[in-house]
């Protein structure tokens, strides 16, 4: 949507520029309104471009997934999550259960997105 608006503003600013130049070239004085419209549409174009870039950056940042390591106790079923470190794999023994002292194993390793967007 923003991209379409941006192109529309750019076209309008080019149109106003052409009208202004033609008017000046024709010996007429381009009205202040015409100059204002031209600069306004140019500024809007730049502003929309800036918004587009910032939105894209925010989108890239927010969709970076986090690796989750699910750890489960083989005895009592207690579960917890921890950060991934190189060398982790599903089935690896990773310490004792804080509840019952049983052996904990890595149950799953997967990527979790910060925001899950459902597509139609």
């Amino acid at each position, binding site marked *: 949507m923003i991209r379409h608006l941006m192109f529309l503003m750019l076209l309008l600013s080019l149109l106003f520029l052409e009208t202004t130049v033609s008017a000046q070239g024709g010996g007429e004085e381009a009205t202040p309104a015409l100059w204002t419209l031209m600069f306004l549409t140019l500024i809007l174009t730049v502003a929309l471009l800036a918004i587009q870039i910032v939105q894209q950056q925010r989108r890239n940042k927010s969709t970076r997934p986090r690796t989750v390591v699910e750890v489960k106790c083989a005895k009592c079923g207690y579960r917890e999550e921890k950060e991934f470190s190189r060398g982790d794999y599903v*089935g690896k023994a990773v310490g004792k259960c804080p509840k019952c002292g049983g052996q904990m194993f890595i149950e799953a390793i997967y990527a979790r997105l910060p925001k899950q967007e459902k597509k139609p």
Partner: protein
Amino acid sequence: MVQMAGGGLADWIQAISQLVFMAIFILMFLGFNQKFQMYVWSRNIRARMSILESYALEARKKAEKLLSEGGAKNPSEVMDRLVDFFVIEPVDLEPTDIIKRLEHVLDVREQRFKGLVGSIMEKATDIEKSIAETVSEIAAALNSLYKQVRHYLLLGEKTNNWVLIMQLELMMPQLIRMAETYYKAVDTFIDGKPVGDGLGPLVAYRLMRGSGAKRVAEDTVAAEVELEGRKAIVVKAEGPGSRVGKPGEAVRRIVEELNGDLAMIITVDAALKLEGEETGTIAEGSGAAIGDPGPEKIKIERTAAKYGIPLHAIVVKMSMEEAIQEMKEEIAKAADKVIERIKDLVRKESREGERILIVGIGNTVGIAQ
């Protein structure tokens, strides 16, 4: 004076504008528009081709780094051989024993790859070697993709074939997406994290954990467990290295050893979802759910048909990107649902005390047994 000068300038601007429009009109009749279009398309393709090139080079650098970390003294020389490695498909004009010929050619390729990587990575473990092989294969795939795009672009420019250039321009978004998928997968494999295709091995692990898995075929293990009062033999590739194993050969050996005394064979795998389908959806069907070129799949089918063993398939839907990149949460959560489906199928389609075979198909990177 100012007004007269203004009028003269306007006339000049008008005259030049008319001349320019006339020139453009004439050039369009002479085919200049096509040449210009080709130039614009070629420029776009070159811009995106540089992205493909960067992916190929980066993947290659990462593969070389892995090889040198594993003790390789000249990783660049080995990578030169690996990235251009090719396989010639067997003759299909004569389809007799084509599967056997295809299997032979693929085995030779696999052994050669393993041999090249294994021989130079003296300090590495089997897991590290398997990961280096996979990363090298990805680098080779990206290199091949870049070279093919470059070939068609140069061919189109040399022969002024604007149709070829147009087709390439239209295909570029898809090709970039594919290359990006492969490139993102490189880091996943280097870190040893499970990928979406590891769904089958994850299900197999959850069924067989702690049951003392034994090797039954090359890079493939099996374990016998109790499941709903039945004896379940669970098969998966040997992890946590990056391996797919030989599940077809494993099934053939197990079934022959048991003389076909099995109530059913269930294969669990990832399947490509259609656009609009949700990732992690489970579907059930019949047949062998395995995406190999043919040799392993046909072994499962032939063995099941020979002894009349029902062949069931349970798949979890995901996109191609999700299959080769880091396993998503929805896919990992689907593993438990798949196990419930298996139990339900086993309860309904077999009797207590019977033997069943469950095969977890897929790349087992990051998943042990």
